[in-house]
């Protein structure tokens, strides 16, 4: 009996050893089969603003630098060279120079040079003759004066002022280098990259196929022979497909918490993780017109929120409460808990908060006899609609009668951009976990995505101050201060930061789901299958 136990113990000890061994020696070959949640509008990452494009097409490209794909938390420390061999900042922090790898070829055989880097960023900055149909991240390069080249293998970003965070923007899955010799139109339909996988075909509403790039400049990679994405818009069918083994992996970060339970019960061997996706659900308040031009009403609104109720109803408790920046431990820039709880509306005593909210409403002239009627506008899809319904229920307690105004997807952002709403519920996704991207895009005066018209010149000075700061700990303190001020000003009250699930079959190895962005972890060059 003792020998059997010893044998079992030895076997148990051997298991992790086997795992380590198998992790160290990836097997070659196999097609990774993944279902895709919808048919992306095009194959051009630069022209898109949804990770529906990044997931299937990031493996076709390389960036200058990228977030290390097996490190779950994107940070400055996790940035590694990709097409760049190395990089260096000038002493004044206004020039970032990249030495480029030599001998890299595009999938059509043409050589990659610094001219391609210049072309890509000139196009992103709107400087080149060739134009993207749409250029959603043009503002990322507001501080870039010019991109210059020195020979075929050196490119430099010359900045108007120091911006250390530029490197994180360049590491995003949203920032691949495009070839000069291929038009933006062709990149939308037949993308050419330098990446580990070559584009084979994209059949709208059907499938996207990629095949191994045998000439990939990173020797020994990729491990897979190809990747096939089957487009399945019906979530139930997709999950059943995964459970039945038709797919090796679900679409990343697309499995909701209730569905995750089904997956785990029907496919107990599946590996599933639940991670934050750096998407916040927030309230947009049109502060430029009555009644929300009154700061008291805006504050009352923020005080009425029971964030835990949202999280328990929608995510069975698996979501996070925070400010603008993604909460810890996933987020790098989140305020400390004590600081967060000191913000009005974030304290644990919901009844006291609401009592205060009612007083503010009464001060503004509203009460049980004179209730404020507002339309709560939101996009007509469940992840928007469901929290909007909960919001309407919660604001009832502070004399606000909300009426749900569901807006067709095609009309949602045009409506919001026109400021044709008074109160709305919106989702904001962040491509990188960095304050520069979040603050300038959503809160700076005149920004296209500043839907609430919030404009505070004092706080804008702080945006710049944190942006130029090289010392991370000093920058963090500035970011906390800004985030606290944004919440106190009720610029765009954050309700919660969501978490979602991803699952894969146990034989799929090398998958890392990023914990502070859902846009950057899909190169798949080091993914392999142990079968």
């Amino acid at each position, binding site marked *: 009996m003792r020998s059997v136990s010893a044998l079992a113990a030895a076997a148990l000890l051997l298991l992790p050893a086997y795992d380590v061994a198998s992790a160290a020696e990836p097997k070659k070959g196999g097609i990774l089969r993944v279902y895709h949640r919808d*048919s992306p*509008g*095009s194959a051009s990452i630069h022209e*898109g*603003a*949804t990770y529906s494009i990044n997931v299937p097409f990031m493996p076709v490209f390389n960036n200058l630098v990228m977030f290390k794909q097996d490190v779950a938390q994107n940070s400055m420390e996790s940035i590694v060279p990709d097409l760049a061999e190395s990089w260096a900042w000038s002493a004044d922090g206004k020039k970032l120079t990249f030495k480029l790898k030599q001998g890299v070829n595009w999938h059509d055989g043409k050589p990659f040079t610094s001219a391609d880097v210049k072309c890509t960023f000139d196009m992103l900055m709107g400087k080149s003759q060739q*134009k993207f*149909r*749409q*250029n*959603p991240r043009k503002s990322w390069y507001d501080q870039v004066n010019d991109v210059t080249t020195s020979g075929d293998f050196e490119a430099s970003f010359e900045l108007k002022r120091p911006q250390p965070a530029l490197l994180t923007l360049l590491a995003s899955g949203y920032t691949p280098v495009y070839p000069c010799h291929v038009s933006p*139109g062709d990149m*939308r*339909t037949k993308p050419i990259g330098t990446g580990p996988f070559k584009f084979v075909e*994209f*059949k*709208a*509403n*059907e499938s996207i196929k990629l095949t191994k790039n045998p000439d990939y400049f990173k020797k020994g990679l990729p491990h897979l022979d190809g990747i096939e994405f*089957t*487009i*399945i*818009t*019906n979530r*139930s*069918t997709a999950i*059943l*497909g995964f*459970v*039945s*083994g*038709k797919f090796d992996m679900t679409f990343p970060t697309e499995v909701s918490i209730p569905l995750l339970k089904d997956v785990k019960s*029907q496919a107990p061997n599946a590996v599933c993780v639940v991670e934050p996706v750096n998407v916040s659900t927030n309230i947009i308040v049109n502060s430029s017109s009555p009644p929300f031009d009154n700061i008291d009403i805006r504050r009352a609104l923020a005080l009425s929120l029971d964030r835990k109720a949202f999280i328990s109803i929608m995510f069975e408790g698996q979501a996070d409460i925070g400010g603008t920046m993604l909460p810890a431990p996933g987020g790098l820039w989140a305020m400390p808990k004590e600081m967060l709880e000191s913000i009005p509306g974030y304290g644990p005593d919901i009844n006291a908060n609401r009592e205060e909210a009612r007083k503010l409403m009464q001060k503004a002239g509203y009460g049980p006899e004179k209730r404020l009627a507002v339309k709560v506008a939101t996009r007509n899809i469940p992840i928007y609609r469901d929290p909007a319904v909960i919001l309407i229920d919660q604001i009832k307690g502070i004399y606000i009668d909300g009426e749900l105004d569901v807006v*067709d*997807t*095609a*009309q*949602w*952002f*045009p409506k919001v*951009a026109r400021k044709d709403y008074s109160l709305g519920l919106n989702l904001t996704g962040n491509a990188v976990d960095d304050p520069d991207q979040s603050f300038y895009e959503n809160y700076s005066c005149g920004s*296209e*995505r500043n839907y609430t018209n919030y404009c505070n010149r004092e706080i804008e000075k702080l945006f710049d101050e944190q942006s130029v700061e090289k010392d991370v700990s000093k920058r963090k303190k500035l970011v906390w201060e800004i985030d606290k001020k944004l919440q106190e000003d009720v610029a765009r009250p954050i309700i919660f930061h969501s978490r979602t699930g991803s699952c894969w079959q146990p034989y799929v190895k090398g998958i890392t789901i990023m914990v502070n962005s859902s846009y950057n972890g899909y190169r798949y060059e080091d993914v392999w299958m142990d079968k």
Partner: protein
Amino acid sequence: MFAYIVRRLVLMFVTLVGISIIIFVLLRVVPGNIVDILFDAAGFVDPTDKANLEKELGLNLPIYVQYLHWIGGLLQGDLGYSYVSEKPALQEILPRIPITARLAALALLFSASIGIPLGVISAVHQGSRLDYALRVVSLSGLSLPSFWLGLLILMASVSLFGAMPIYNPNPQTWTEAFAIYCVPAMAVGFRSAALTMRITRSSMLEILRQDYIRTARAKGASEASVNYRHALKNAILPVITVIGIEAAFLIGGLIVTETVFNIPGVARFLVEALRWRDYPIVQNLVMLIAVVVVVANFTVDMLYAAIDPRIRYTD
């Protein structure tokens, strides 16, 4: 007869022109176009970029000019370009037609081959336990939504066989081909089979009470001969009408079934194209469906004459 056919063809042409105008205008009356959707995905609207894109796609032109461009192209076999994939619309639509046609044909076949015999059996055994059982089956067919039935089938196949029929353009075995096409066809055809069965039953019940049926029995004709040769032949006309109408309604069921079973056919493509406001695809697909419906109706009318010699179309 010839004059009737010519008149029907002219009417068909006028109907199709009318449909083309209605589709074209309705699509543009719905708020939002492809440009709005593309910018919606980006989260903000740059008015200059938006105007440029509208110009590039010809959406800035007056609506009648856009219509004339479309019809002019259509007459020359040029269906335009998909706004989304930027490929010729014909290239996008053509490969999907056989998939949906196969599914629709199988669904109709299923509907007729199940619905008619069961309707006859139910009528012949009126009031029996078998009749009640068949009527329950037909009621369930009419009341179960096809998407729900489709999902049930998928869930059952996963839990019973550990596999599910997901579309594969090149099925390796006949069982795979069966699973890919026949299972969805049954899911979508169940409703029309139920309807066909009910119509067949009521039509048969009416015919079976006719004097000539009693005469046939008195002459010693077998039950099978009475039911199928004498009764069914005369009861079939309303059934053909229903099958013809069902063929037109089938597209609605196919949209759901193609989505649930993930079949890349025309119906699902139409929904996706509508979501993107991909006008060239939607316009041409709706026209295609309109042509199919108009031709199906015409064929049904012609079938009447072929099946029932008493029917003659005159001027």
